[in-house]
């Protein structure tokens, strides 16, 4: 084998190693996103059940759960936010799990869903801070989960060579 051929093979092995490392890093990110979304899913299921039973939601750390959750802002286009949140978190969990296992075409819908959730979260945070002047800890937990997911998605975009080098199955 010539010196040039040896160098070419060595570079190829290095590139494959780099792609494998990036794939592993990305898988880990998606796996973390899937696990984080389960926290949001549990939170939303609890609030959905409270909504269905019509029970008052009592805050243990803050004092405004009932104010926020019985306000007009607790629904969007006539639909209560809690089940919408549960559906959104389940969608994030599913897409992130599939992406973590290397399924193709999951990242764009995942980014879109998290983007929409971020907008809804920012709206609800604004309403709590400036309209109702009360905070609901379950809504804040959901906001924290969505912000964490947003951070993970932004970080995943920064993984170098992501667009071209991550093969699907």
């Amino acid at each position, binding site marked *: 084998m010539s010196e040039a051929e040896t160098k070419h093979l060595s570079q190829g092995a290095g590139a494959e190693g780099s792609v494998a490392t990036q794939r592993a890093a990305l898988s880990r990110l998606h796996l973390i996103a899937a696990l984080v979304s*389960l926290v949001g*899913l*549990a939170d939303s*299921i*609890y609030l*959905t*059940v*409270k909504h*269905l*039973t*019509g*029970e*008052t939601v009592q805050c243990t750390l803050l*004092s*405004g759960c*009932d*104010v926020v959750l*019985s*306000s*007009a*802002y607790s629904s969007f286009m006539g639909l209560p936010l809690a089940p919408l949140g*549960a559906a959104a978190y*389940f969608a994030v*969990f*599913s897409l992130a*799990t*599939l992406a*973590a*296992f290397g*399924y193709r075409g999951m990242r764009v819908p995942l980014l879109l869903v998290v983007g929409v959730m971020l907008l809804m979260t920012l709206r609800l945070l604004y309403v709590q801070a400036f*309209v*109702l*002047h*009360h905070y609901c800890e379950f809504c804040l937990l959901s906001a924290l989960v969505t912000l964490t997911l947003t951070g993970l998605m932004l970080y995943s975009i920064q993984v170098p060579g992501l667009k071209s080098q991550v093969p699907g*199955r």
Partner: protein
Amino acid sequence: MKRNLPLLIIAGVLVGAFVVGVLLYRAMKPAPDKTQNNPASMAAPGAEPPHTRGVANAPVLLEEFGDFECPPCGQLYPVLKEIERDYGERLRVDFRQNPLVTMHKHAYDAARAAEAAGMQGKFWEMHDMLYEKQSVWTVAPDPRSEFQNYARALNLNEDTFMRDLVGEMASTRVALDLRRGKSLGVLGTPTVFINNRQLKAEEMTQDGIHKAIEAALKEKGL
């Protein structure tokens, strides 16, 4: 198998979420009260005690869901005052907070101002003041300072009033009334119930309310 593993995980989480939801629902669902079967008595109770004017055991109960910033509520206010005078001890009036926060940006603060005054025993005085001065504070740059002026005019302790206005008790009472309204299907304001029967839009006139009260009295043989 490995390719199907994520699908199995997703299906497992979906089933798990559903099962947890059903179990939570069963655990939290209140047991039905078989002794009460009319819709109003099955509704959420609202803030206790309610703000009441008139005799506690009057034969007719008029329950109003109001929003201090809503103009039709302001128009209904003198009508209800007159009706209260007409029926005296035969009528009890309950006021329930129903601020429409998406439409009226100061309604929630006004509701809490009335509750804060109520904590010093002057709910109805503040209620009347808010309706009578509706055209003033709704356009004021800082409605809370207007509410403070009203508290001063009513000889309330201003510091306590301003503290109570943003306190937990006022917001909880408003939230409980809102919950009662929601459970009764109140969609707008003013909404009036007479002996637990919701008046239709066309009945919301002085004459219409009179007729509804007369019918309620007749039902009771009075």
